[in-house]
């Protein structure tokens, strides 16, 4: 199967996946820069500020109306964290032009809108307008605070925060509430400028776009013009994210296992475990680690699901996931608070079982089938295609899917046992109800 075609031009990289399969055409621009304590909050605010207004569409509402006029084009921006990189994104997706009268040129218009959103924000003098800054600071404060309201995600974040303690990986995707008060329109403008002029830029196009080369050239032309207008051009001389090299996995550490307990008035306890593996998607052992994680908690046939949920009836969900960039493996469950000890010991037993070679032929086979299916499904999901490719790009190892599938197929039980010795427990996190203390 033809994958992405890549065109490099300095720090701009365009990846095009041309296929008549999809009715929707997708355009996604990613600005990549290293996570850093002093820029994490203003950078996180940028994509939201972008949606406050552009030079042609000076208010948030004008941007949304324009998108609606493009037959309900989806136009959005977001902030992401991949390993120790901060990724600021703009996205536009439009439906098939053939389904509607008067929809010719829809994709070009949507691409132009997305490019304008990230490169030509509405400004007052040399600053983001005070009104927009104020509005977004208020929203961003709530955005950060409301993470607290989703206990499953909150517990995972708290667990990973402990695992990444003191590392750049650990900087929060959305930044810090305490930084928000000091942000000014001028300062945000300069952070914006710096991002446009120095970040590594990865633009993705997926859909029925005919000739991939031409589509890539169109995007290059569009981005060059956008950066030019933004007052920088694509040849910034500052250190770029590329100079940082690929994302490295989190190394093993010495010292004791950390235990973190939070108390809140909750109905269900959340027990999460964070492990370091030191293995990321560019390593030769990655396919084996994928299989290892799959056997542990990736599927309904996996050890965690079978032993924590099905056999002991302790939980509704009990699963593990592996971050391909950081090599961190995280287990999550929701349990009755009093069952903490029992659940913790069953989870740790499952890891030990793998390390002791207790892997059945069916566990191995089912897990390989399941992984293969997950990757093949991504072929029919444009956003998954982009994500997978981008993770490989960041790790400096964009393996072709075929290659990865072959390697997964070749993984043996011995390989799994061998790589499982790298699984080092770092943090046990528990969210529980409030323990009443005597007055």
């Amino acid at each position, binding site marked *: 199967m033809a994958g992405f075609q890549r065109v490099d031009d300095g720090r701009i990289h365009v990846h095009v996946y041309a296929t*008549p*399969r999809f*009715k*929707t055409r997708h355009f996604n621009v990613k600005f990549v820069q290293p996570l850093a304590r002093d820029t*994490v*909050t203003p950078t996180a605010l940028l994509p939201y500020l972008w949606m406050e207004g552009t030079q042609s569409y000076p*208010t*948030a*509402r004008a941007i949304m*109306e324009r998108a*609606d*006029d*493009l*037959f*309900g084009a989806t136009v959005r921006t977001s902030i992401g964290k991949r390993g120790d990189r901060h990724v600021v994104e703009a996205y536009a*997706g439009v*439906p*098939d032009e053939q*389904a509607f009268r008067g929809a010719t040129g829809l994709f070009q218009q949507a691409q132009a809108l997305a490019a304008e959103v990230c490169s030509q924000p509405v400004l007052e003098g040399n600053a983001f307008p005070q009104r927009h800054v104020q*509005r977004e600071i*208020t*929203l961003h404060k*709530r*955005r*950060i*605070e*409301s*993470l*607290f*309201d989703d*206990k499953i995600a909150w517990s995972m*974040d*708290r667990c990973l*925060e402990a695992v990444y303690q003191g590392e750049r990986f650990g900087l*929060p995707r959305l*930044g*810090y*509430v*305490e*930084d928000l008060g000091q942000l000014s329109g001028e300062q945000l403008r300069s952070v914006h400028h710096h991002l446009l002029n120095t970040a590594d830029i990865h633009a993705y196009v997926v859909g029925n776009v005919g000739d991939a080369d031409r589509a890539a050239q169109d995007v290059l032309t569009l981005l060059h013009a956008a950066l030019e207008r933004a007052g920088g051009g694509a040849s910034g001389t500052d250190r770029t994210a590329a100079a940082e090299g690929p994302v490295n996995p989190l190394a093993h550490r010495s010292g004791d296992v950390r235990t973190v307990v939070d108390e*809140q*008035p*909750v109905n*269900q306890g959340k027990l999460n475990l964070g492990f370091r593996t030191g293995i990321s998607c560019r390593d030769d052992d990655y396919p084996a680690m994928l299989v290892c994680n799959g056997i542990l908690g990736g*599927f*309904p046939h996996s050890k965690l699901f079978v032993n924590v949920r*099905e056999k002991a*009836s*302790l*939980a*509704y*969900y009990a699963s593990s996931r592996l971050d391909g960039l950081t090599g961190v493996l995280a287990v999550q469950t929701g*349990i009755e608070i009093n069952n903490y000890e029992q659940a913790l010991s069953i989870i740790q037993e499952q890891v030990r079982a793998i390390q002791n070679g207790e892997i059945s032929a*069916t566990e191995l086979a*089912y897990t390989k*089938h399941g992984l293969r*299916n997950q990757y*093949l499904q991504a072929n*029919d*999901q444009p956003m998954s295609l982009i994500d997978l490719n981008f993770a490989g790009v960041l790790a400096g190892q964009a393996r072709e899917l075929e290659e990865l599938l072959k390697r997964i197929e070749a993984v043996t039980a011995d390989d799994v046992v061998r790589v499982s010795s790298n699984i080092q427990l770092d943090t046990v996190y528990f969210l529980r109800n409030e323990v009443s203390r005597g007055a």
Partner: protein
Amino acid sequence: MRELDYSRLRERLYTEQLDNGLTVFLAPKPGYQQVFATFTTHYGSIDSVFRVGDEAPAAVPDGIAHFLEHKMFESPQGDVFNEFAKNGAAANAFTTFDQTTYLFSCTENAKENMQVLLDFVQEPYFTDENVEKEKGIIGQEIRMYDDNPEWRSFFGLLRGLYQQHPVRIDIAGTVESIAKIDKETLYRCYRTFYHPSNMMLFCAGGFDPKEMMDVIRSNQAKKSFGPAPDIERIYPEEPSEAGERKSVAALSVSQPRCLIGWKDANTGLTGQDLLAQEMLTGVILDVLFGRSSPLYHRWIDEGLIDQQFTWEYELTPSYGYSLVGGNTADPDRLIAEVNDALARAAAEGLPEEAFHRGRKKAMGRFVGSLDSPNFIARSFSSYYFKGVDLFDTVEVLESLTLQQANERLRAHFIPRQQAVSIVLPKAVDAPAEKGR
């Protein structure tokens, strides 16, 4: 096998009703590797009182449809997930108010997986022991939702809107209600609602429709089902006005959340009428409260709402409701603002340009979602038992007029059919002032 061509959408459907009453739809998507199949019974959490033939009416425990969904994955050979895993498929299931769906998605061995799907849903295996075991698992599922502010505010709203109709009860029931479930009751519900005549099968993605239909046909021909039970679903008489106008819950959250909803008095619709009312109400809500509306931006400016603010409309033959809301700094002010806005809209009518933009957006979003076999299978199935053809969506949207919208606006948003549901922060344990 009939072929239906939706040329404008570049989609094609194949359909057949089998001898045992099962209706099958196949939606091949050329070039796709993924196959997504759903096997759905017209049986959900609201079907808790029913009569079969001339038997006495039965009332079964709340949450039993969902409990049954969990238990279907047991077989004498063990866990059905393993059968799917053997063929590299990911399987799942979900229960809604009015249906239960079993599904798999795969990229290889689609025919084998289809057999597994048909066989496990048509071979119940309940024992005292495996029923008991599930109570702990579902208990944790209920607990998980107990901590979820979206879920809590949503069911607070339905409980307020509905005085009698079982849509007011959580789909999973309660820890107390599921304690009463035993294998005999499960078998009884199974025999009543899992007859092929009460079910439909949908498959979308990369496969050959003729071959797939042959597999399904021969699988079904090997099994014998008795005559179709004559099911009467008994829903209580629901008054048109809301019951409890305001409900408040306290949870461990950082900020208040508020949903404002209206019970739909115009129920009993099916087919195109139902679809038209659904689309029309959706466009109205989007024009008034969506991302392009002046109100949404004014409330954001004033710090009243955040970007999680949302609207929703759901309609089935026996109930319907709309809602707006989300996180808010001031629930009472939001309620007053929403009611003001609706009174003004009813008096002035919707702006014509905004109405047409809203229709156009809804059409575009619909067509864009047709890239997903998952979306097609799930949406087509959920509409099917309402007598609606999913692929009529664009035509229906095209036919809507501003006049219809203004009439609907005045008919639906009636104060005495309104209820509100608020979730407030439980204690002064707001998150520490640090980033996450």
